[in-house]
């Protein structure tokens, strides 16, 4: 199921409700729903945050496949290129005094979803992730 969402943080609740309604209807396990919501939020917020001058909606597509697998696509038309699959160093063992707030979103996505793909062409970026195809649930 596909829907367009306005590019601002007030959209996070409607985005959550959209995905939750789809997953709840098919009785998707909470251990899959939680990381799906988290990955969706992190990706959506990045698209909003890094493209302050873009006004186009963000297109979100949630598809349920067999065996409780959830596939989510977010399309950002007009945003800057931002490869969410690139490795970023996050030192999760650093002591408190060396920690800096921020930078954990992509790290969490990469750890919580099963597959993560990114494509960017002619100003159009698309992120596709899946959850529930076999990786340990949280």
């Amino acid at each position, binding site marked *: 199921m596909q829907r367009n969402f306005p590019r601002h*943080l*007030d959209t*996070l*609740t409607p985005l*959550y409700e959209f995905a939750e309604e789809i997953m709840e209807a098919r009785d998707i396990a*909470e*251990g899959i729903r*939680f*990381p799906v*919501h*988290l990955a969706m*939020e*992190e990706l959506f*917020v990045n698209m909003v945050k890094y493209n302050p001058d873009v006004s186009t909606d963000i297109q979100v597509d949630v598809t349920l496949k067999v065996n409780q697998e959830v596939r989510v696509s977010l399309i950002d038309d007009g945003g800057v290129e931002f490869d969410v699959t690139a490795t970023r160093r996050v*030192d*999760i*063992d*650093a*002591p*408190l*005094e060396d*920690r800096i*707030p*921020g*930078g*954990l*979103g992509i*790290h*969490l996505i990469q*750890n*919580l979803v099963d597959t993560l793909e990114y494509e960017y062409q002619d100003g159009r970026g698309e992120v596709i992730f899946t959850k529930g195809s076999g990786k340990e649930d*949280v």
Partner: protein
Amino acid sequence: MFDIEHGNDGTVLCRGRLDAAQCEKAEGFLAGLEGANTLDFADLEYISSAGLGILLKTQKRLVADGAGLKIINVNNHIRDVFRYSGFHTIFDIRAKE
């Protein structure tokens, strides 16, 4: 929806979903804390990296003053987010019983 308030015993009760849209509310409340504090997550369903950032900022401030946060009644999903973020080494975290 997200709510944060002091409980009768002084603990800080967090409820709902702490996403990026709710961080201003959380940060405004937590900025007023001083000394040792306990956050009760019994009714907190969800937290994203934006919420983690607020917790980290608060913890750094309180620990610098010789105190800190204890977080109790953490559900399994949030506990795993803490684990993937390495927060279990910098916070006193107690799982939901």
